[in-house]
Structures are given as C-alpha cells and as structure tokens.
C-alpha cells in the first residue's frame, strides 16, 4: 500500500518533470539564434528532422552512436580510462539493477521464467551490480576529492548525484545484510514457504542457518552438535535449498551481515529491516521523482545529445544548420551537460582562469550559469560582467567541443550566446582584443548594426577622451598631478619626435587624415606620455586600432618600445573599464 502510493506519486512527479523539461527545450531561448524562432516552429522543425532521420538509412548513424557513445561510452574512454571505468561501473551497474531488481515484475519475471530474487544467478548479480555502482561512486569521490583533477568543480548537484546513488546502494546493501541475519525474516520464510510444523525441526533448521548462512538467532546459539546440524541440513535440503541460494552468494550483503551480527538480534527486534526498507525505497522514489530536475537527467539527455552530435557530424558541410533545430538542440544540450569538467581540463584559456580566478572562463562553469540564464534567472550586474568576460575570454580553439563526452556542440553555443550577451550592454574591454577574431570572421552572419554596436560601445568607454586635441583654440592643459603608472615602460622618455613610428605605421598610412581617424599618432602618444598625460594617451583611438605589427618599435632610432607601450596603455584601459 505505502509502496504503491509512493511509487505512483514519484512516477507522476517524474513524468510531469520530464515533460516539463522536454517542453523547455522548445521554449527556452538560448542566444541570438533563438530570437526569431517560435515554439510551434521548433516543434515542427525538430519533428520533421527527427522523422527524416529515423525513416531513412541514417538511422544507422543513430544505432552506431547509441552503441559506441552511449552503451560503450567510447568518448569517455578516449579521454580518461579511470573515468571511463568509473562511469561504466555506475552506468551498467545501475541500469542492470534497475532492470533486473527494481523492475523485476516487469522485466526479469517476464524474460526469465525461473526468476527468483533468492536464486542464482540473480541472487549473486544483485549484489554484484550494487557493488559495481558503489565502486564507481568510490572512484568518483576519489577523483573529485583526493585526486583533485585540475579545474574540476564540484557543485551541489554533483554532490547530490553521488549522495543519492550512495544512499540507494548502501541502504540496499545494509537491508540485505540485515535480512540475512534477521530472525523474523527467517520465521516469515519458514511459515510462508516451508510449511514446517515441527518446532524441533524448525530449531534444527535455524541452527543450521546460524551455523552456515549468517542468521542471528535469539533462540539458539553455537556451538551446535552434529545431530542438530544434520537435522537442520536435511530440513534445509527439503524446504529451502531449491529456492534459496546460499547467503554467501550475496557476497557483499553477507559481509555486511558479518559486521551486523553482534547487534543483529536487537536490530531485528526494533524492526531494522522495515526501517532500512523504507530508507531504500524512499531514496529510490525520491531519486526517481527528482531525476528530471537533477544532474541524473543526463541519463536521457546525454544519449540524445550524443546521437544529435553524430547526425550533425554527418551533416557537416552539406546542409546549413536550421535556427529552429539549432536553438532546440542548444536548449537540450544545457541539460545534457554532466558538469564532468573535461572541457575545463583542456580549455586553452585555462591559465587566464588560474590568473584571474573568474570561474566563468571555464566552459563547464559557463554551462551552469547559462542553464540558469535560460530558465530566466538572470545573474546580477556584477556576476553578469564576470559571465561576459568569461564567455569572451575564449580562443575559439574548439577543444571543448572535440573532447565533450556528452557530445555537446559547445563551439556553436559560445558564438551564439556571446553574441547575445555582448549586445545586451556593458563594455567588455576584451572586445578590443584578438578574442574578437572569430566574431569578426562570422560578422556576415549577423545584422550589421547590431554586430557593430558592442564594439562601438566599448570604444566609447575606453577611447575618445581627447576633446582638447580636436579644438586647436584650446591649449592642452598640462596636468602635473597625473603620475605615470609603474607598469608603463619608461623608454617613452627617449622620444624626440622624429615621427619615424608614425611614418611606418600601416594604420596611420591607411587614412587620408590620420589624426581625424586615430586621434593621436604614435609619436604623439609618446609625447603625451612624456608630458605625463596618460589619460589622454589612453584615450586615443590609435591605441585600439594598433595592429601590433611592431613597425614603429623596430624603426625607432631611440629604442622607444612604442608597440609595447601601446599594449601597456590597452592593459591600463582594460583595467579602468573593468573597474567602471
């Protein structure tokens, strides 16, 4: 009764949660790709796409991906053998327990006519699968807390996943161990299955089970004489043996039973088995009900993501990705991320994270915050600034996409989300660095004005504070309160304004009226620094239009580090912009 109520309640929550989650894949808008898509449009596009694959020979691609990536998890194996072992133990142990043990009425009994949980191989396998999961959980704990894989972060959801698995497995193991020792369980079996009436015979059987199978009895105590044991054995052979494998076959539970033995009789009296049974099934049902909202949802989403990846790799170069399908896939991929940290282990920008400490530089942590943003929980302004910095500080090396064990197409996600975030506001100084290169390469994919606006915005923040220069009537006011920061190379002082740097500069050479376009020419910037006017120097467009070709520095007769100084001014401006 309690069992059925709990089961049905958790099944209903699970089904509702799963439906809700699937609905969000069509509803959530991730990045700018999703802007012009509608829910109905996405449902139709995805259904067509999926049907088109399932009804064609391309279904073989799905089968192959399912076999290699989902069942054998080759993508994890390629990364890390220990992790593969961990995940295979948990995955297979858990799945087989689910099918053989949890769903025994539906699966095992239907498939195997001789199925009884107390006979071999099932009796043994249940323990074996449970131990597999526990071993996997053990490796997970080892990796996260002892090995300390670089940049592998453990959040509440990761802890939950480990805890729920551990609670289910350990409670099952304890329950089984206690059952082995339990006298009431023994009596229940005797009364229900053996149909023995003779008290003496039952005591003999009991003695035999105490001697042989770990039973803890309040009635009999070893040592037993051989006559009792003989009688017990024959009772056992007649009534038990056919339907009950020796308890030792449940090797892990039997070991637990050994530990419990000293307190087993008391535990049995206070109905310890009932208690553990409740813990076990409530943990299972809680895990089931909460699954759609937890990391364990990846049981469903990661296989979908892996198969989507296989199809998109097959598509590569032949068909342009459809916005409706791409948006849906990206929303789903947010749920397919297991926060395993493989991307962050390999991230090219890893050292920037180590220096700056901004977690959002790491792909795995970006996924976590994007999940929140997609569900409408916007971070506050300060956190958003960190998120934008993190998402912009990406070299677009695509390694994360290559290594992701869940097959998530992270590179497209970054481009899509980056575009959305930089358009929302703020002035991320990284936009004025070579981190913009790939954005520039993709500019034809975006609307011209919307694409240009974020760059103009940040330029306005860092550059253009040199009004006095544009008005010749106004003399430049020398500012003796400004001090040149230590980080500025002192060689600017050697400048005697020969203008070689400005003459060889290809940027200056690109314009009819360079001063109008770049504000200050390189030699003027050196002059500015000489006059202590760092603010004005920093404000010149030239500083940000610099192509870092080092012609200026190479050709300076005074060995002024012109190009390096421009770098330093950009560094200072970035610091200011971040502070603002």
């Amino acid at each position, binding site marked *: 009764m309690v069992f059925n109520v709990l089961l049905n309640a958790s099944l209903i929550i699970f089904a509702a949660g799963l439906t809700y989650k699937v609905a969000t894949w069509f509803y959530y808008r991730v990045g700018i790709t999703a802007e012009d898509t509608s829910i109905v449009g996405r449902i139709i596009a995805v259904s067509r796409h999926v049907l088109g694959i399932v009804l064609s020979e391309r279904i073989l691609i799905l089968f192959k991906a399912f076999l290699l990536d989902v069942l054998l998890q080759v993508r994890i194996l*390629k*990364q*890390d*053998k*220990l*992790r593969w072992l961990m995940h295979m133990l948990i995955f297979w142990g858990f799945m087989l327990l689910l099918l053989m043990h949890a769903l025994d009425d539906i699966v095992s009994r239907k498939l195997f006519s001789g199925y009884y949980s107390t006979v071999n191989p099932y009796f043994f396998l249940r323990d074996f699968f449970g131990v597999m999961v526990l071993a996997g959980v053990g490796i997970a704990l080892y990796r996260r807390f002892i*090995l300390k*894989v*670089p940049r592998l972060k453990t959040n509440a959801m990761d802890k939950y996943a480990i805890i729920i698995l551990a609670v289910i497995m350990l409670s099952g193991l304890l329950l089984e161990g206690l059952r082995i020792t339990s006298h009431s369980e023994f009596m229940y079996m005797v009364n229900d299955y053996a149909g023995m009436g003779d008290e003496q015979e039952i005591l003999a059987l009991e003695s035999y089970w105490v001697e042989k199978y770990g039973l803890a009895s309040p009635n009999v105590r070893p040592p037993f004489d051989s006559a009792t044991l003989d009688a017990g054995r024959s009772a056992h052979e007649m009534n038990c043996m056919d339907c009950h494998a020796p308890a030792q076959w449940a090797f892990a539970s039997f070991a637990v039973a050994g530990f419990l033995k000293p307190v087993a009789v008391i535990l049995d009296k206070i109905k310890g088995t009932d208690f553990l049974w409740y813990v076990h099934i409530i943990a299972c049902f809680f895990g089931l009900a909460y699954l759609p909202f937890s990391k364990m949802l990846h049981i469903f989403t990661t296989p979908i993501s892996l198969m989507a990846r296989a199809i998109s790799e097959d598509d590569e170069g032949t068909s342009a990705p459809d916005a409706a399908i791409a948006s849906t896939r990206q929303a789903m991929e947010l749920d397919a991320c297991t926060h395993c940290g493989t991307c962050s282990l*390999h991230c*090219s*920008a*890893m*050292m*920037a994270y*180590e*220096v*700056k400490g901004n977690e959002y530089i790491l792909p795995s942590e970006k996924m976590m915050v994007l999940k929140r943003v997609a569900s409408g929980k916007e971070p506050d302004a300060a956190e958003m600034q960190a998120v934008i910095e993190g998402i912009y*500080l990406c*070299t*677009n*090396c*695509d*390694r994360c996409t*290559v*290594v992701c064990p869940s097959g998530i197409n992270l*590179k497209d996600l970054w481009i899509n989300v980056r575009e959305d975030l930089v358009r929302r506001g703020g002035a991320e*100084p*990284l*936009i*004025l*660095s*070579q*981190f*913009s*290169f*790939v*954005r*520039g*390469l993709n*500019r*034809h994919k975006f609307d011209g004005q919307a694409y240009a606006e974020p*760059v103009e915005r940040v330029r306005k923040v860092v550059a253009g504070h040199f009004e006095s220069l544009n008005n010749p009537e106004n003399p430049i006011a020398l500012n003796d309160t400004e001090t040149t920061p230590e980080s500025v190379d002192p060689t600017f002082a050697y400048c005697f304004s020969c203008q070689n740097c400005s003459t060889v500069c*290809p*940027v200056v050479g*690109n314009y009819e009226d360079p001063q109008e376009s770049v504000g200050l020419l390189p030699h003027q910037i050196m002059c500015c620094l000489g006059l202590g006017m760092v603010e004005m120097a920093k404000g010149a467009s030239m500083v*940000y*239009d610099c*192509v*870092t*070709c*080092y*012609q200026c*520095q*190479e050709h300076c007769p005074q060995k002024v580090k012109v190009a390096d100084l421009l*770098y*330093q001014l*950009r*560094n200072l401006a*970035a610091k200011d912009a971040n502070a603002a």
Partner: protein
Amino acid sequence: MKNYTMFLGCNIPARVSQYADAAMAVLRKLGVEPVNIRSFYFPMIAPYYSQHVSADNLDTGDFNCCGYPMRNTDELAFLVSATKNLAVAERAGTDILVLCKCCYGSLKKAEYMLQEDNALKKDINGRLKGAGLKYEGNVQIRHLLSVLYHEIGVSALKKKVSSKFKKLNIATHYGCHALRPSNITQFDNPVAPTLFDELVTVTGASSVDWNTRLECCGAPQMGINDKLSMDLTRKKLADAAQSGADYLCTACPYCHIQFDTVQQQMAASDPDMQPVASILYPQLLGLCLGISEKALGIHLNHLDITGVKSFLS
C-alpha cells in the same frame, strides 16, 4: 637535431587544420618526427591523461593558448599562459616547433621578458607551481620556417625536391610577429629578410618583389575595426596582384585566414576584386616533395588553389 614538439595554438586545429597536416607530412618526409608530449598533471597515473585532441600524433592536450590575445588586456595572463607552454615542453625535454607566427611572437616575447627579469620569472613560476611546472629557460622556440631553413637547410631541401614549379610567381608574406621586434624574435633581418624567399625558390617558383611584403595582413584588427582590417588586406592583395604574383604564400594561420577566408568574404561583396589566393608554405613545398594533395589539405583552403599544380613540371 633536438626533438621538437609541435605547437599548434588555437586557430590551426579549429580553422586551418590543413596547415598542421601539411607541415606534419612535410616534416616526416624530411625525417623530422615531432614528439608527442604526454600530460604531467599526475605522474602516478599519467597514462590516463594522455589525451590526443587532434589525430595523427599531434598532441595539443597539454599546451594551451600562447597568450597572444590576452596581451591586449592582461599582461600577466598572457605571461602565465605563454610560460606554461614553455614549461611543459621543457619538462618533456623538447624544443617547440611553432606553426603560427602570432604564437611564435608571443612565446618569444614571454621567453625574453623572463630572461630579462628574474623577479618576474620567479613570480610566474610561482603561479605554475600548482600545475607542477617550472620554467628555467632551457627550451628553444622555433618557427616551422626557421626549422626548415636552419635545421634542414636549403641545399638539403633542394635534394629532396622531386618536382619543381615553373613560371610560378609567389608573393611571400613574412608575417609581422615573426619578424618584429627583431631583437626578440630573431627570425631574420627585419628590414630585408630573405629566409622565406629562399625557401620558396627551393620549389622552383620565383619570389616576386612587392612593396608591402613585410606589412601587416590585417588580421589583428578583425573583429575590432573590421574596415581597417580589410583595408590593410585589400592594399596588400592589390600590391601582390600588381607585382604579378599568382599566389600569396603564408606560414601563419592568422595571415592565411585573412588572405583565404576573409578575402573570400571580401570578394563576395566586391565583384571587381581579383583574388590572389593564399597557399600555405608546407602545401607549396609538399607538392614538390611528391606528397599528395589530399595529405596537404589543398582542397581545405577556402579559395581554390588547385591551379597551382599546373605549374609543376
């Protein structure tokens, strides 16, 4: 010759993989086998961490960004990033063979800065401690072209060439970050370099003289000031065309993308433009060494360069 580890950087695996393939094919043909660096995060279980991100013995697992794009906003992040790579190679006891000129310039700059400033070196090493790394300065940073020129040598290359180009005019694009600042990069004479031209001549092609050959390709401003970026590219392309060049030759992914991908985009919106396609140097040399077009990734360039074969004798 010391062992080399290939440093691919970020652009090549993602956008110019043919450069790595062609360079690898050429190096192997010439008897150079770049070493595979394993991970050193956990010496005890190192075998578990021997990731191979890209195929064919090119391991990028342990290197990270050279620091080049970080230099604009955060010098410290640039230095730590660059030095980490040097430390990884040093620990493996190999030198670094760089394909990208921006990576090359970046790594050389970091090497120079740490050489000049002991306190800085100490600070950076302190930051690498967590990764179990330390950089002493015992690692050579070499660009592919330098290895071909200095280690293998023009005369040895000439002997290996099995077929030569005829009447092929090539405009060599040197790439700023290899040439300058010359006291740091030590690549070639910054005002009148010949290294690349000599390497091109090995293939039988003539290296044309063109005014802007030492100038910037425009890539560093792509995404920042796109118009400026493409202005610079356009100017160079016009100059190369005027000098009678059939192809531009590059040895840097940034320059190559600018003359290949970006030029293609520019040509799409400007029908008057006469494209001068870019061929990567190992592609050019590879064809003369008898390496297949497929292995050199000739078809992976955005602009069609298959016509270059017609110049082969």
